[in-house]
């Protein structure tokens, strides 16, 4: 199980405290959206071998949701950050670029 640092309380948490919450930065589609948009929002998920952005919750801790940027292949963690953002912050993206120069994820480059 990974160790992730909760960006809210600063605790380095592991399997006894964290709960996984799937892919980060989904854009919600509600009433008025097309079938395709809604389908993609509900079901289509990235499954990369490499850089990925995920939602986690410090469930048995401070209770806060946060985001983690990590490599699914090497388990390297590039950083954790607030859940209250619609895209990975620049400093996280820069850090990834340092280690994985040609990374892409969805339409983030």
């Amino acid at each position, binding site marked *: *199980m*990974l*160790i*992730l640092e909760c960006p809210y309380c600063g605790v380095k948490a*592991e*399997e006894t405290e964290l709960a996984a*919450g799937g892919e980060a930065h989904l854009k*919600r*589609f*509600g*009433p*008025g*959206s097309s*079938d395709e948009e*809604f389908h993609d929002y*509900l079901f289509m998920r990235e499954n990369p071998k490499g850089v990925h952005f995920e*939602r986690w*919750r410090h*469930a048995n801790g401070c*209770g*806060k*949701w946060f985001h983690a940027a990590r*490599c699914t292949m*090497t*388990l*390297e*963690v590039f950083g954790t950050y607030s*859940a*209250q953002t619609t895209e990975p912050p620049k400093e996280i993206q820069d850090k990834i670029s340092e*280690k994985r120069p040609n990374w892409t994820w969805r339409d983030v480059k």
Partner: protein
Amino acid sequence: MSTRLAKNGRLIDRSKQIEFTFNGKRMKGYAGDTLASALLANDQMMVGRSFKYHRPRGLVAAGPEEPNALVGLGTGDRFEPNQRATTTELFSGLSAQSQNHWPSLDFDVLAINNKLGRFLTAGFYYKMFIHPRPLWKHVYEPIIRQSAGLGKAPDKELKDADTYEHFYFFADVLVIGGGVAGLQAAKVAAQSGAKVLLLEQHNYWGGRAPVDGGTIEGMEPGAWVEKTLEELRGMDNVTLRDRCMGAGVYDHGYALGYERLTDHAPGQGGPRHRLWRIRASQIVTATGAIERPLSFAGNDIPGVMLAASMRDYAVNWGVTPGQKVVVATNNDDAYRTAIAMHGAGVEVVRVLDTRDSGGGSLMEEVRALGIRVECGRAIAKVKGSKRVTGVAICAQNGEGGAQEEVEADAVAMSGGWSPVVHLWSHCGGKLIWDEAHANFRPDPERPPLGADGNGFVIAAGAANGAAGLADALHDAQTAGEAAANAAGFTPKVGDAPAAEAPEENAMEAVWLMPAKADIKLRMKTWLDYQNDVKVSDVQLAAREGFESVEHTKRYTTLGMATDQGKLSNINGLAILADSLGSEIPQVGTTTFRPPYHPISMGAIGGEARGEIFQPLRKTPMYDWHDSNGADWEPVGQWRRPFAYVRSGESLHDAVNREVKNTRDNLGLLDASTLGKLVVKGPDAGKFLDMMYTNMMSTLKPGKCRYGLMCSENGFLIDDGVVARIDEDTWLCHTTTGGAERIHGHMEEWLQTEWWDWKVYVANVTEQLAQVAVVGPNARKVLEKLNEKAGGGMDLSKEALPFMEWRDGEIGGFKARAYRISFSGELSYEIAVAASDGLAFWTALMEAGQEFGVMPYGTECLHILRAEKGFIMIGDETDGTVIPQDLGLNWALSKKKEDFLGKRAHSRSHMADPDRWQLVGLETVDGSVLPDGAYAVGNGVNANGQKNTIGRVTSTYYSSNLGRGIAMGLVKHGPSRMGEVIEFPGTDGKIYKAKIVDQVFYDKEGEKQNV
């Protein structure tokens, strides 16, 4: 014969004799013996029969890599199958049984399979039993299950008599393996100030070094081990644990240790096994190496043993598997066995060295002892069945034409050494092929990576491919320094302890002996002893197209036994590579998965058994229920009374009594477990409009509304009554099992989607005790309580109408009363402070005596709601049901632009008129429908099964109606009222039920609104 030697045995205490039994036969051993060494001392060479051919099998190894010596250990509630004799320390009264034979170890009926070996090749079962299909289930499978398999499962009625525990540990450096490399690495790391944990799987330290000889810092290795241990024990930052195996290495420095505390001393008290859950900054794997067998015909006959293991038995425990030994080798190390056996007084008949040029100084030493060494020679075939009787000798570079036969009763074989790379590989460490030593070893450039992207595992010593004592210690020194550094400490950089050992000549890779062995020999040449896989099987798999090593493994079962191929994998993939005309590194290894060696299920479970399997949540009235006949039902982590059983009553009687009494008089339900979430803030109304399918923002303070919650997929996830407390505050009731889940659901949306909305959610479930006061006399009992207290809140129909709530005092208790009903009766749900719960409940019970009060449990609750046709989350819903399926369209707001689930409800499948819909079901004969039964319609599906057209979701006996009642989801149900449909039961009966309205009782709802 195998026997105890007159001398040797550094680990045994000859002054302490121990009695034990093997297959009921009394035997004697010494303190310090393993079961394996004690069996050898008693001339019990044969220890079991093989998996497939039921061939006699003996001890091959002396450690955890042993494939054959699996026994059933203990009796009754301490019986365990498949325990390794080599890792079982002998204790007084030990009782072991050999496995996989019938009727006895010596005479086995299924040994006939051995004669049929020609037909039982790889994939035999797949090919033979595929047709006709029905025969598999009824004939083949039962027979195969009876004859195959390893040990017997323990009696299912018995509970494990021992206890187990988990233990958490945090270390800067975890060193796994207490041989000389592990000790040195631990010492170097500890001297830097790092917190070090050192684990050793055996009950002795030092690994192979004390057996293999040489000198370290001028000392015998055994003395150096003692000295280093003393140093480590003197350091406060070092924790040492023997009998504790490193079982697995996982993400980001997580590791498991498996400590066997009382296996060697049953009855000592305390937990039997302890699972260490370790987080380490750096992990050093100093796990040594395992010797490989040589692949020659008859290499599985009892008496054939790994060369180093034979020497272990002689040196450590003073036993020998035979009196006339032939040694076969492709490297110098096996000469140590010749020297050790000779020194122990055992005749070494011949050393057969496959290398034309032979070995180095060790060979010279052997020759000097007068032992005959032949180079370029090999074993053509071992003679014997239950015991080695002789060896046919041939040229290694030939087809196996025997040139000579010698008498022998034991064979020592050495095919080279494979580093134990399991722990390195568990979490993604990669391997490289070392051509010179013909083995895979850790690639230091590609270690398992931690959170920071740097490696967190370092292999040391023989586990890292270091050959020889000096190299291993030097490697360990470097590993200890690197680990300390990486963990943030500054190690003293120094020289490794100086070590001396004889120079060795290069080994020669030998994958088949002799190199061009014919098919007859190859069919008797074993790769995997435990799963009975031969060289010819792997070659057949390759011919049949199983080119990937992972496919070959599954097809032949090579390496799939409980030893996970510790001995067989490298030899097997070398044969596969040869058959494919490929190189070994290109074929690659199969995946190494934890645990390294089987660990007990008890250790994995730890303390979580019985009462403390999971946390138990109790309401404030728990003890009252318990002393008043509660038959408990688990609901999530809560326990709720299913019914209160009186003496002389069955559970069913109790339920029926409670159901009738609540409708006729007065019932009390402990509803404290219902989830209670306070949602507060300027945007709370807007937020709840998104959470619920109906409109909550328009609810007036003082009023209640029943609400539904859907997931974004549109499926029902929870329901409950919402009360508006004031302008900014709502209280949302959830289902008993839903409080934490729905709280989490709300937090998720608030934190991750609408984080700018000003709303707080607090789970106050446990702050409040809640009692449902239900029945025609409900108002009377509450008014009586108020009278006795000299006043209280007005509970009349006018002051507190249905679906409203008020704060006030009832019977002197500060209370909040909700006029809500899940039973269809006049009903008040009254919340008081949790600390008042029991007093309030007791006061109600006392005051209710004259009104016929009885407590009721969850089953009565279910029946009352089913009589009224109210849905229950988890019964009528299962994660695939939408409100429309349940006729709850009225609860779906048409005014709101958006709520969770709204968009999903307009997807084509959700709007499909063929979806099954909720109806009532009434059996034609009044009986009770089986729960979960499916209704069948006309025609059959693609599998020839009858088409299903519905299923039962709730079914009960209603004592009020004197008949079975049920609800179910039925295709086109609401438009088929009056139609009778059929539900085949699992009991073979066909139940006929009429489709009716789901409200069975008080259709107009008059009783609740009085």
